[in-house]
């Protein structure tokens, strides 16, 4: 096999991008979700609608934004609305198919912490906070989460719930009256996790090439369940890899520094 070599981050971004379908309306978080969303747009999903919380609707950036409100997002958008309108009419209004989030910490039910490590009033690490994530997690039709898998990030118990996943599992979301279905996939540098059909606990459903089940279990702070039928993530195709690398190269050139 003359497979191209690639990094774990590249595999993660490519695996995430594959979950996005053409014409989906995707509310995109900055960083890894933004790279995956734009990769999808540049490969198999040319008519995907990308929305950033800064108010840019149907944006088609040529390079990745460093921040959620870069000029590149505004200049290539179908339209730009105010931030209150974005959260009121477009997100809460139920117009979003996929909310695409990153996270600092995640638990077995795909609840997310981006607020503090340690106690809220005396934090060990003060993280940036909620941003748009709580209501994206609540209102988007479904949610994808992308982050690197480590035992420090995949924790038994979150110090703070910033954005809800499946709460304490089962039909907890429905009982709480949350409009969206919640996280349906967590994409990491090791594989893909999806919530179990009834318990809604995350289980490992796919391993990226070269990664072992034991590695994934070891990088998880709770006892990770593995799906009966564990799949193998297809490696990046030449087109996926070239497109992603070209995107990062353009981004680095445009920003005059190292790519994200």
């Amino acid at each position: 096999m003359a497979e191209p070599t690639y990094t774990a981050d590249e595999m993660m971004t490519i695996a995430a991008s594959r979950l996005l379908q053409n014409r989906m309306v995707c509310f995109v978080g900055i960083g890894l979700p933004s790279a995956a969303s734009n990769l999808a747009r540049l490969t198999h999903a040319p008519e995907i609608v990308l929305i950033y919380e800064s108010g840019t609707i149907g944006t088609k950036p040529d390079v990745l934004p460093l921040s959620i409100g870069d000029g590149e997002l505004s200049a290539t958008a179908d339209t730009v609305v105010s931030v209150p309108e974005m959260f009121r009419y477009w997100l809460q209004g139920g117009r979003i198919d996929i909310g695409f989030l990153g996270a600092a910490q995640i638990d077995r039910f795909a609840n997310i912490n981006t607020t503090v490590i340690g106690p809220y009033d005396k934090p060990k690490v003060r993280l940036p906070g909620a941003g748009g994530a709580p209501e994206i997690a609540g209102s988007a039709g479904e949610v994808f989460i992308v982050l690197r898998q480590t035992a420090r990030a995949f924790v038994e118990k979150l110090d703070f719930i910033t954005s809800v996943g499946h709460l304490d599992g089962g039909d907890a979301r429905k009982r709480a009256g949350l409009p969206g279905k919640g996280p349906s996939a967590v994409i990491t540098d090791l594989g893909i996790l999806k919530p179990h059909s009834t318990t809604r606990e995350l289980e490992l459903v796919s391993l990226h090439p070269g990664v072992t089940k034991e590695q994934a279990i070891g990088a998880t702070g709770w006892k990770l369940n593995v799906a009966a039928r564990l799949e193998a993530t297809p490696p990046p195709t030449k087109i996926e890899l070239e497109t992603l690398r070209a995107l990062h190269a353009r981004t680095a050139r445009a920003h005059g520094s190292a790519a994200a």
Partner: protein
Amino acid sequence: MAEITTLREAVAKLIGDGDYVACEGFTHLIPFAAGHEIIRQEKRNLALVRMTPDIIHDQMIGMGCARELTFSWGGNPGVGSLHRFRDAVERGWPAPLKLYERSHADLANAYAAGASGLPFAVMRGYVGNDLPKHNPQIKTLICPFTGETLAAVPSVRPDVAVIHAQKADRKGNVLIYGIVGVQKEAVLAAKRSIVTVEEIVASLDAPRNATILPNWVVSAVCCVPRGARPSYAEGYYGRDNKFYSDWDEIARERETFLAWMTRHVMSTTDFADYERSLSAVQPKQVSHG
């Protein structure tokens, strides 16, 4: 009715110690020049509010201007933490900073409610979320039609709103375009407002439904070219990404931060002087000179 004046006079006249001050800008059009002038005039005890406090808030907090901060996301976008913000929260330096933490959807609704003259906003949010445990401002109410429980959040109605915009005409009417954020709402929600602009022109030549702040809702208009740098102004200049990444190193330690602020902000007279001071240090950094 907007007075066209200098930024120094506007900040001196319109912002008092202890005021509730919104400096808004969502990546785009962040009012850096106005933030520097607040620092230069040593305003104290301010209650700051901003959806996305970034470097300019790191600077105001680190220089001791703030007693509290209402916010929904605090960081150096694309780079990492705000070290001065963290130092204030984690170690109370230079002064403790009381936090009122909310979400973007909440604050966006809260500014809109403020602009609408309402005491609160209703939204669907915060279910299963830990923020209401730590911020008693976040309440719930029951829909009188469906019985659904919804979040109720207090309006943001600052004493002063501070924003940067592309241009004003000679009467003080202001045009903003591109990513407009919550700036219009912030100005309409506030008792007073300061708008810095790239230029003052004879006619705005705005398209029909453009975002305009008429001169009678603005207190002061100040012409400060490049006044959003290192943020950007669509149609004028791009974001100085290098400054954002350089800031991480400058702000990491109290000493380097204070030295930088003393040299470039406290020892300069206005934003143009600050730019000259910066470019003297970094002659090659064309983008932020």
